[in-house]
């Protein structure tokens, strides 16, 4: 679907071009994901399958990080789901711009990742399908191929910790976190999340602290204050 769209639409080609910086960065991040997944004890093929079928960087990193800490499958999957929860809102926003019946729209929605969604956003509540597909295609290719490269590299590295591979996860999460700190409320939520994660990280089974920290997001249910709106 994406390839025929690419051939037929100049708009999709423009979207692919705009996505190249994201695709290049995604390639490098995918390499670090593959290496980290191997050093967290994940079979290489499972890591590659994850990139092929899940195609959601933050969720994949979160799930593998929890497994690497010795957390349960349930904790890992729940963390990935919570990390992906933003796609609910993004999918609702882009929904009216997609075409066809339910099945086709569900499939078209799979092209949504952070960068493709943002590039496709026309700013007036409408989204360009062609830019969505065109920009998602190169990102998918580099995400998958980068994971393969990382898995192969991770399999031959004698001592990943000597190369600092274990800081790839937290450094990547920190980079994403900084992008989320758009206002004071987000900063307060992050600090509360840190406190909960540390306390429960020491007291509860692995992964529980991370899941529990997500509860502080419900601070968003509070009545909006004018200054919070202005900061957003």
């Amino acid at each position, binding site marked *: 679907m994406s390839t025929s769209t690419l051939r037929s639409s100049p708009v999709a080609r423009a979207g692919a071009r705009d996505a190249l910086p994201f695709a290049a*960065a995604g390639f490098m991040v995918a390499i670090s994901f593959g290496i980290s997944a191997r050093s967290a004890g994940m079979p290489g093929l499972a890591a590659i399958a994850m990139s092929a079928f899940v195609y959601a960087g933050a969720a994949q990193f979160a799930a593998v990080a929890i497994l690497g800490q010795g957390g349960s499958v349930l904790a890992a999957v729940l963390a990935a789901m919570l990390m*992906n929860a933003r796609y*609910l809102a993004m999918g609702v926003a882009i*929904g009216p711009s997609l075409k066809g019946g339910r099945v086709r*729209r569900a499939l078209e929605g799979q092209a949504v990742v952070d960068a493709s969604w943002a590039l496709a956003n026309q700013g007036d509540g409408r989204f360009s399908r062609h830019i969505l597909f065109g920009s998602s295609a190169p990102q998918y290719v580099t995400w998958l191929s980068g994971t393969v490269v990382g898995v192969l590299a991770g399999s031959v590295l004698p001592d990943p910790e*000597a190369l600092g591979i274990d800081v790839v996860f937290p450094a990547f999460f920190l980079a994403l976190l900084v992008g989320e700190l758009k206002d004071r409320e987000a900063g307060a939520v992050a600090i509360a999340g840190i406190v909960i994660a540390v306390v429960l990280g020491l007291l509860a*089974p692995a992964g529980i602290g991370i899941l529990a920290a997500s509860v502080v997001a419900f601070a968003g249910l509070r009545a909006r204050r004018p200054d919070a709106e202005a900061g957003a």
Partner: protein
Amino acid sequence: MSAAEKAWLTVALCTVTTFLIRAFGPIAVGGRAFGARTSRVLALLPAALLAALVITETVIQDGELDVDARLAGVAFAGVLLWRGASVIWVVVGAAAFTALLRLVF
């Protein structure tokens, strides 16, 4: 369950849940948005989760506080971010800095 079985089960479940989450918006609503408060909670979730992941991956090991070169490496990542570095240089720089510390000390 072995580590490999856990990994494969996680991949399978993440595949299904991620598909459903991505499919939800396009099929469930005819353009009707979430309420402002629900949207706000969804928008705040990544900040809470990412902060929890950063700290857990930085100072906790096997359920105990463990301060080592990782903390310095992540702090270095923070400096790189503050200097406006792109995500890939942040990741590579933090790993290199941590590796250097481990080599020296």
